[in-house]
């Protein structure tokens, strides 16, 4: 859905766990719509492959499982300017901050840190709905 909405041609999934799991890699590349390139990279590979010096390979959507990964990418030298948060599940020690988006205390600290670094953070689970700016929420968390 996201790909049709924003016309991405390539998806990069940055996650150390999935990068070491060949079964999940196969599932993800088979489940992607035809015509889409899917790459699964570890955090270090992500920093190398998405940095300024890497060749441009078309409109790319970068997916991460958690704000922790986003921070590691950012601190590793990948200076992205915008980040969208989709649905993140709740559980013990986590609270819902917007609809079905939950975050732990640690993750809120990371998001606030990224916000201070000038990253524009939005919350949106499904394309086409109204997105919420994290900057508006941050003061209440």
């Amino acid at each position, binding site marked *: 859905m996201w790909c049709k909405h924003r016309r991405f041609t390539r998806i990069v999934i940055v996650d150390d766990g999935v990068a070491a799991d060949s079964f999940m890699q196969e599932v993800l590349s088979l489940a992607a719509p035809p015509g889409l390139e899917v790459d699964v990279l570890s955090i270090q590979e992500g920093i190398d492959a998405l940095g300024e010096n890497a060749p441009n390979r078309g409109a790319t959507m970068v997916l991460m499982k958690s704000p922790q990964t986003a921070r590691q990418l950012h601190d590793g030298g990948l200076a992205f300017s915008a980040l969208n948060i989709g649905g993140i599940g709740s559980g013990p020690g986590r609270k*819902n901050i917007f*609809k*079905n988006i939950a975050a732990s205390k640690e993750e809120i600290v990371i998001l606030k840190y990224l916000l201070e670094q000038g990253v524009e953070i939005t919350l949106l689970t499904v394309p086409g709905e109204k997105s919420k700016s994290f900057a508006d929420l941050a003061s209440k968390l």
Partner: protein
Amino acid sequence: MKRNRKQVGIAMGISLLLMVVSVAVVKAAPEVQEPPRVSLLMALIIGILYYLSMSPWIANLGFTVLYRPLVAGALVGIVTGRVGEGVAIGANINVLYLGWISAGGSLPGDPGLAGYLGTALALGGGLGVEGALAVAAPLGLLGGLTWSLRMSLCSIIPHWADRFAEEGDVDKVARSNYIYSQPFLFVIYAIPVMLAAYLGSGAVAAMLGWFAGNAIWVMSGLYAASGMLSALGIALNLKFLFQGNVWPYFFVGFAITTMASGGMNLILFAIIGAAVAFVHVLFTEGLGGGAAEGTAEERKAPGLLTRQDVFQSFIRWLCFSHSTYNWERMQGMGFAHSMTPIIKKLYTTKEDISAALKRHLVFFNTQPDVGGIIHGAVIAMEEERAAGADITDDAINGVKTGLMGPMAGIGDTLQQGILIPIALALGISIALGGNMEGATRGNLLGPIVYFVLVAIGIWGGGWFLYWQGYKQGRTAVTNILRSGTLNRVITGAGVLGNWVMGALVVQFVSLSTSVAFRIGGTPFEVQAILDSIIPNLLPLLLVLLIWWLLTKKNVSPTTIMIVVILVGVLGSIPIWPGLNAETGEAIKTGLF
């Protein structure tokens, strides 16, 4: 376990009983042609039906069948004693929701509310078939309010379930999923709809009566808006269909139907479309089959579970996957509930049972029918674990969280993007006898055909995937995906979808202009000139315009809906030049 089965049986019994009561009400209702008075009992039944459409009691056919305006209209028609009109009104309203997709826990508009309340108000208010959509469409927007309330309040229940899991009480965990949320859902769904249907139809009737006496153009405005709103429904569907190398079939469908003057049997037309889709897939993707060979290895099951156990789990998931749907865990409660028969069979000590319950009460969200393959795989892992294999909580969790996203994407495409719209298009077409304009009597066979198609897809396909997941373990996913069947189905459905949508433009969108004037002595009728270029040109352009606004300009469907209604009503103010059809005199007319 037996007790649980009995409860499911009782629930189904209650649903059946309600249907019988509805039929009894029909028998009692007099056959007159005035608008039916919606009595309090009728309103109550309509409210209960709306609740049932959002409830778990009918094996996942609530949301996929009862919730659709085509079916809702028919049921309201039965309740109020106007079956034919109810079917026709429901079918008309449903055109707006042909491309309606609820993904990732969002609810963009509420077809169920538009269907039940919209039909009740249109029937009870005497608005009739042609104008129903203009009343029902704004109602659909109101549903979002109850949705947020439901998703927030149901977030409390998982915390009760956490406590029961701590105690290792399997039955209480199951009950907290399928019972505790229901009284609350009944109150927020059934009661408001009952009151609105009871009080609203009189208000609508009074309002329309006033318009008919004082500003008749408002009525023609509502009719014009209804005809144009259908274009929004089709354009929303095209958002997903009109792309790749299958979009030309949209114009083929439009052209063929126009040449047949709209009076075409859509079933036959769809059969031709399916054949064309097959040929298209053959040329673009090949026959396939080669890649799948040698991959279907079967897992060696330890033999602790029988097919019956897996089926028990499947039935619970089929019915109750969404009964305590909430922002915090989404379908987490449903997942734990579906595992209860398995946990009971596999584990005996309180510690093991409690640990297994807690393991499955966590966040989970996928598409229920295709996602069932995950449950099958998880059951297989639980079985091996109970038999002594070293399978960690992390491994089980990894399969669940890793697969739920991809399966949701595939499942939403197959069910909400392909199965439901195509089954709806056929059902609607049968309901209106293939000829939309002027069809004030609908055919009850339409909603029934829709119900059968969806039930086969959801029950049959759902069980197939659940069982494959158990038999093959998690490799079932890659085995099924690798065969390439999925892509061929999606491409073929894209062809058929475009083909049918093209026909629907002709059958459902009505837009024509009555503007006419004289130059010198020659009458100059705009519509006749347009028809001489391409018949149905205005409906086609309207659909393409809305599609363009939706996809290229990111205009929201709600904005378009409001603009269309305003244009329809305001455009009908008689200030435009026209000609009297009989005498040829110059008069003032509306745009449409």
